[in-house]
């Protein structure tokens, strides 16, 4: 009825076509991923200058932010205590030059979120206006000293007592 060769030939051709379809599909998939990678790289290469510019900007920002944060070398506890002591001296100097009087102070070192935080609780007595000027000086001259909290109260007739908590955020470097 039906010639064997024709029918067999058709079956063989179908099988071969299926195999070819599979090969084509695999190659297509591989090429697709290669093309994606290729496009990605072309895109990156085209934007190379922009990336360099971004990096420069970031470095500038890094430099800018370095004044908001102190860098301390990795060391032992004694080294940190020394740094803490240096900063309190600097802080007391700032207070005194602002016509304010330090009544008492307490300091401690904390480590949080990968930062080393030098914490100072200081009680200051002086004129309210001077106290505000002191805040302003801190913001201008010592950007790395942050006022975490404070409480100002009237003290005697024309004076104020201020309980101040300041913090210095440090990052350890090699």
């Amino acid at each position, binding site marked *: 009825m039906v010639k064997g060769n024709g029918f067999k*030939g058709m079956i063989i*051709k179908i099988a*071969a076509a299926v195999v070819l379809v599979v090969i084509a599909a695999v190659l297509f998939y591989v090429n697709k991923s290669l093309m994606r990678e*290729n496009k990605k790289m072309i895109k990156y*290469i085209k934007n190379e200058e922009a990336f360099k510019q971004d*990096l420069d900007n970031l470095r500038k920002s890094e430099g800018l932010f370095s004044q908001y944060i102190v860098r301390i070398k990795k060391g032992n506890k004694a080294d940190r205590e020394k740094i803490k002591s240096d900063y309190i001296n600097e802080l007391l100097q700032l207070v005194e030059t602002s016509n304010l009087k330090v009544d008492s102070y307490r300091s401690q070192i904390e480590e949080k979120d990968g930062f080393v935080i030098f914490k100072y609780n200081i009680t200051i007595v002086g004129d309210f206006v001077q106290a505000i000027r002191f805040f302003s000086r801190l913001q201008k001259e010592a950007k790395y000293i942050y006022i975490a909290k404070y409480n100002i109260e009237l003290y005697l007739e024309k004076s104020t007592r201020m309980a101040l908590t300041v913090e210095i955020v440090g990052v350890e470097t090699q």
Partner: protein
Amino acid sequence: MSNSQHPIYWFNPVSGEIHLSQEELPAKKSRLYLVINRENLFFGAFALQSKKRVKDSNILNIQSHFIPFKSDFMNIIYSAEKREEKRFFSWVGHLTSTMDVNVESYFYDEIPESLMFKGDPGALRNYRLFVFKRVSGFEIIYFNGGTDDFYSIFEKDESKIVEKIILLTRKFSIGKGETVRMLADRDISSLHDFRRLMDDYSFNIDIDVIKSNENKYFFLPDFFPVKKKFSNLSQNKQMRSIKNIIRQWNRNLTIIMALLLVVILLNILGFIVFKQDNARFHEKFATIGKTLSAAETIEFNLNKIKRKIARYPDHLLYLKTISEALGLESSLIAYSLDEGKIIIEGYSTDSLGILTQLRKSNRFKEIRFKTTVTKNVYSQREKFEIEIILKEAKV
């Protein structure tokens, strides 16, 4: 059967008139399809090839040769359509051999199926004799099933039917003791000669009478190679159809495979190009990668620092906003900033005004009196304590 595209001749054998349904006559060397439409027994269609122009007299000649088969009327339909079937025409051919027209084909396939396949196909083969009443007489047919031979006689006089039957049985030499089955549309056993026939001859005749209200149709007998040919043709057609499908699919598959090969080749080409490109790009991309990596590290550290710094309140800004709200008439006796909130304590002539003024600022989340506002009888100013909830710092 009717075909409105071609002229149709209606021939009435009783009156001998030929009516043309359309004005146009058949063209020269045309084919005529003679359709004999017969009640109850046969439907046949014959294609006649004309050597020259078919004249009305030719049609009459054909008709006269078909008298025994003639029905009340017959249709002659002109058609240019070619038919290939030729097997049947030997027996018709001898009828038409003296004429200028030859039977070319027998187009059984144009017989309505509803008529061809009605009834039992085997039933007709059991009969040897047929007697049918026609308008102008009787038609007596003898089929010799074994040799596909037949003979037919037309008899106008009913009383002579028996004689004709005897004539036919002698011609075909029916043996003694044989029983011949007859199909008739009237009961001829009532004829007075029939008894004599049965007595004088040693064979028997069994008569089956078709009732007029049965409207019975039969298959054509075997020597009409209708069913067989039709079946064979159908099988051939099927075979040809399957072969054609396979051949066509083989062709299609070859094309598909060729296309697939082209697709694969293109893919391979693409693969080589992409690979080369990627290898070239990788070198350049390495330096970009370093840039990106450095930028990513810096950005990560910066974001971390920004987040950390943002947690510290911008206390000078808050102080400025609060002092603006207080105005010159008010004075502070305490001011504290702690844990996301500011508490201010002081004296004012309009504590509610301070609260309203502070609420206008978008730097604070919530502002409310912490304690009840009090007023000393010795002073015009009232003491207030306001709690300010700060907004969460955004990075």
